[in-house]
C-alpha cells in the first residue's frame, strides 16, 4: 500500500509545531518547520511509546514530552538521550492546502 492519505489541513498546524494524526490503527506526528515545510514521523517516541505530539518543536528538533529525548524530525535521527533508536519518517506533500502522508506498507 503506497497511497497518499489526507492527514489534516496545512493551517491546522502552527509553524514550528506538531500535530497528532491517527490512521488505520497507527499514530503519526505531522510537523510544520519554521521554514514552512511539512514532515511526518511515527507518532510514538522510540524510547517509551509516548505521543510526540505533546512535545516541543525547536528548529529541526522534536523533544519528547516524557524524558526530553530528541529527534531530528526531518531525518528521524535520534539526537539526544534517552532516545537511541531512530524514528521512522514518511513522505509528505501539501496539495490545495491539505497535508498528505504516504505510508509504506
Amino acid at each position: 500500500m503506497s497511497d497518499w492519505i489526507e492527514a489534516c489541513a496545512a493551517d491546522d498546524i502552527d509553524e514550528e509545531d506538531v500535530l497528532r494524526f491517527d490512521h488505520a490503527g497507527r499514530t503519526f506526528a505531522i510537523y510544520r518547520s519554521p521554514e514552512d515545510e511539512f514532515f511526518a514521523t511515527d507518532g510514538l517516541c522510540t524510547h517509551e511509546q509516548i505521543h510526540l505530539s505533546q512535545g516541543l518543536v525547536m528548529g529541526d528538533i522534536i523533544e519528547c514530552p516524557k524524558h526530553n529525548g530528541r529527534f531530528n524530525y526531518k531525518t528521524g535521527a535520534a539526537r539526544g538521550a534517552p532516545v537511541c533508536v531512530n524514528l521512522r519518517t514518511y513522505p509528505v506533500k501539501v496539495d490545495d492546502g491539505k497535508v498528505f502522508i504516504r505510508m509504506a506498507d
Partner: protein
Amino acid sequence: MTVTPSARDYSLVGESARRAVESGLAAAEWYHTDIPRKQMKELMQRSDAPAIRDTAIWLGLLVAFGAAGAALWGSWWCVPFFLCYGVLYGSATDARWHECGHGTAFKTQWMNDAVYQIACFMIMRNPVTWRWSHTRHHTDTVIVGRDPEIAVMRPPDLLRVVLNFFGLLDAWHAMVDMVRNAAGVIGKEEATFIPESEQPRAIRIARIWLAIYLATIALALYLGSWLPLMLVGLPRLYGAWHHVLTGLLQHGGLADNVVDHRLNSRTVLMNPVSRFIYWNMNYHVEHHMFPMVPYHALPRLHEMIKHDLPAPSQSMWAGYREMLPAFLRQLRNEDYFIKRELPPTARPYREEFHSEAALAAQ
C-alpha cells in the same frame, strides 16, 4: 522475636519490580492536568538568559567564597565562607545536575551539557548512570522496585536520613560506585537502566573522576593540609544539608505505587534563597507532570494549574510538620501515607490507583 519482612522490595531486580511490571504499574500512563496547547508551548519555550544569569551568580559566588575560605584557612574566619561554599558545591549542584540533565535549563544544548558535567562531578553522580536513573524516576515515580531514586524507603531508615544531611552515605556509595565503575564493572542494578551502548562512557567518566580525586588527595598529602579536600570532595559532605532538606520534601511520606503525581509529589512554597539554590524544584508536582517546562517557568505553570492540584505546603516548616509524623507512623505501619486533599475545582483522583494502599493504611 519474629521480624515481619517488609512487603516492599526496593531492589530493581526483586519481587516488587516483577510485580510492578506484571500489574502494569511500570511504564504506566500518568495523570496530566489539561493545558491548552498554545499555553503549554509558551511554558515550554527555552531561553538561555535566566540560566546564564543564575549560573554566573552561582559560579561567581562559588569562586569568591572558595577563595575567601582558602585565604582565611587556619583561622575561624574561614568557617562562614566554607559553609556558603559548601552549599553552593554540595547542594546547588543537585538542582543544576537535574535541570541540565533534562536539557531544559538553557536553550543552547552545549551549555546544558557543560553545567551538567560540572554539577555531576560536584554532587558525585556519574553523569551517564544518573541520566538513565533519572529517566526511570520519571517513568516510574515512586513505584517500588522500579524507581532507583526513592530517597526514603518504607519503613523509613531515619538514621540514614540524618547521616545524609552530611552526605555521608550518599558520598560513600558514590565513591564505591566510582571505584567499581573505574575498574570496568557495571553493577547488576545499574545494568537494568543504563543501555549497554552507554556503559563504556560511564566507565570512562569514573576513571577521570578517580584520577581527579587521587590528584587532590596527593596534593593534600604533599602540602600536609586539608585545604585541597575542603575545596574538592569534602564540600559534598559539609554542604549537602540544603539539598537533603529540600529533596526529602519532594515525595516524603506520600503515596507510593500510584500513577498520579498529585498523590506522590509535594509542591512547597519556599524563600527566594532556597529557590535559587534549588532552581525552583520546590514546584515538584508541576515538574513531574510537565518535565518539559524549564525551571524558570515553573512558577507560571503552578499558577496555571493550581486549581487541579493539592494545596502546596506553605513553607518548608509546614512540609516537615506534615512529613515527619508520617515517617514516624510508617515505622509502625509502613503502609501509612499522607493522602493529599484536592480542591473542589480539581479533577478527582482515580481511586483505583491507591484503594488497596488506602485500606492498608487505615
